[in-house]
């Protein structure tokens, strides 16, 4: 991004958080730390609680017990839009775009927190520099884009909030291998710009290549944690995916 931004300084801390849907607890006393300027990944099989963890951090699911903090601010009980306003950008699961709006309008929605039109325009130009494809399609309805283009738009919209921490929820899901590589290239690019990244993924190999730290979730609990080069060898990681005991 061409906008001059300060280096990331705030840490996201999730401390012994329990959360879930209706009466069932899906997460049980989960603790993770997302250090400023680093890429932290959450790995785990389907149903391990990855999405619940992300939804709880973002205020979409209620925190039943425990605490979540970003820098000095407590996030538990805060509505999602205020969490985003603190500097947490979100690329939601499933490359969701606003289908009946143009590409440019989708980006403007991401820029709604910024009151100055000039800054929104600057950020939009920065997005078009990273994603030239979106510039070509700026007047097209987002619902008519290809899967890869949607994922680009979804990422760009998340970045339009000018975040310090970007949360990616399974960005490679449903994308062709070519686009998966492109998504990971973007994550690297953002890391080089000193953004903090929380990456939730199923794609283990490429995720471990890009991440600094990682956590492995299984049945709603953290079963392994550490630097990715250690995590790569951890038997818990293989168990979490293949159920090998």
């Amino acid at each position: 991004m061409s906008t001059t931004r300060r280096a990331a300084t705030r840490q996201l801390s999730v401390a012994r958080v329990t959360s879930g849907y209706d009466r069932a607890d899906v997460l049980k006393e989960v603790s993770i730390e997302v250090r400023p300027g680093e890429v932290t990944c959450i790995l785990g099989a389907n149903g391990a609680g990855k999405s619940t963890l992300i939804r709880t951090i973002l205020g979409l699911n209620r925190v039943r017990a425990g605490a979540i903090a970003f820098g000095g601010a407590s996030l538990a009980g805060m509505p999602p839009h205020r969490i985003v306003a603190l500097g947490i950008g979100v690329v939601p699961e499933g490359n969701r775009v606003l289908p009946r709006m143009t590409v440019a309008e989708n980006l403007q929605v991401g820029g709604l927190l910024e009151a100055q039109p000039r800054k929104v325009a600057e950020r939009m130009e920065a997005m078009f520099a990273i994603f030239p494809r979106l510039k070509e399609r700026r007047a097209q309805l987002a619902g008519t884009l290809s899967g890869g283009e949607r994922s680009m738009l979804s990422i760009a919209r998340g970045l339009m909030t000018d975040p310090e921490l970007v949360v990616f929820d399974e960005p490679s899901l449903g994308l062709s291998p070519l686009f998966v590589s492109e998504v990971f290239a973007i994550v690297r690019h953002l890391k080089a710009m000193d953004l903090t990244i929380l990456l939730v993924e199923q794609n283990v190999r490429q995720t471990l290549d890009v991440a600094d730290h990682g956590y492995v979730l299984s049945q709603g609990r953290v079963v392994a944690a550490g630097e990715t080069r250690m995590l790569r060898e951890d038997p818990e990681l293989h168990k979490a995916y293949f159920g090998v005991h």
Partner: protein
Amino acid sequence: MDIGFLAQHLFNGLMLGVIYAMIALGFSLFFGVLDVIKFSHGDVVTLGAFAALGAIAFVGSVVPLPGLALVLGLLAAIAASMAAGMVIGGTLVLPLRNAPPVNVLLITLMAGTILREAIRLGVPNGGNPKPFPALLPDRRIEIGSFSVGIDSVTILLAGLAVVVATHHLVTRTRLGLAIRAVAQDPEVACLSGIDFRRTVLGTFALGSALAAVAGCMLGLYYREINFSMGLVLGVIGFAAAVVGGLGSLLGPILGGFLFAGVQTLVTITVPSASAYKDVAAFAVVIALIGLFPTGLISERASERV
């Protein structure tokens, strides 16, 4: 049948059409943003008209300036309807967001009844029709055999301006962008930093302000309002929105003009049956819904709110 007579009816039809369109837009906006039908909307129209009447009477008792009375009456109507719309939206509709839609339908139907009866009981002698002062110039424009009141011209032009302004607001402003984002995907909207609750309440305020203006215009045109006028107006607005395409922006406008058009057509062709103009219009609505179950415009996805 002479041209002047036809032109006059056509003109009245256009004027009613724009008023119906304003009411229908409210239904469409509420449905777009929350997927709910708010059946108290017709009574919010009535509330606006009565708030205007009260303010106009008050101003008239202080200074004899009809222009000022009109402006303040309009403002009072908008304020009262907006407040009612936001209170109903915030206390009855939003908390029931995850409940079955029929609950919202029922509860807003009840809220409308309460509002209607409160007007009847709260206004002195409220059960009877109330004369609405003629505040617009009383002169007529004559072109050959065509003669039209300046008041009607004013209402039509003002109504068109309000509809165009609403379209502009929804398609071109920050609030409109937020409204459309919430309508298309509330979760993505929140995660982009949009305040869901504020946007929904803003939508209720916008729709209710349109209802207030419609109520004032009906009062100015018919020179009379009554506590139950919202009943049939609500049904007409709802029907116009459904025929045009509930949730779309241009659909309800089209639906409003269509409904008034059929009413006018009946009045022109069978003057003796003009009392049945609503019956004919609703019959056309039923037929059109049968032919286009999703509305006339909703096929064009780009225009949904």
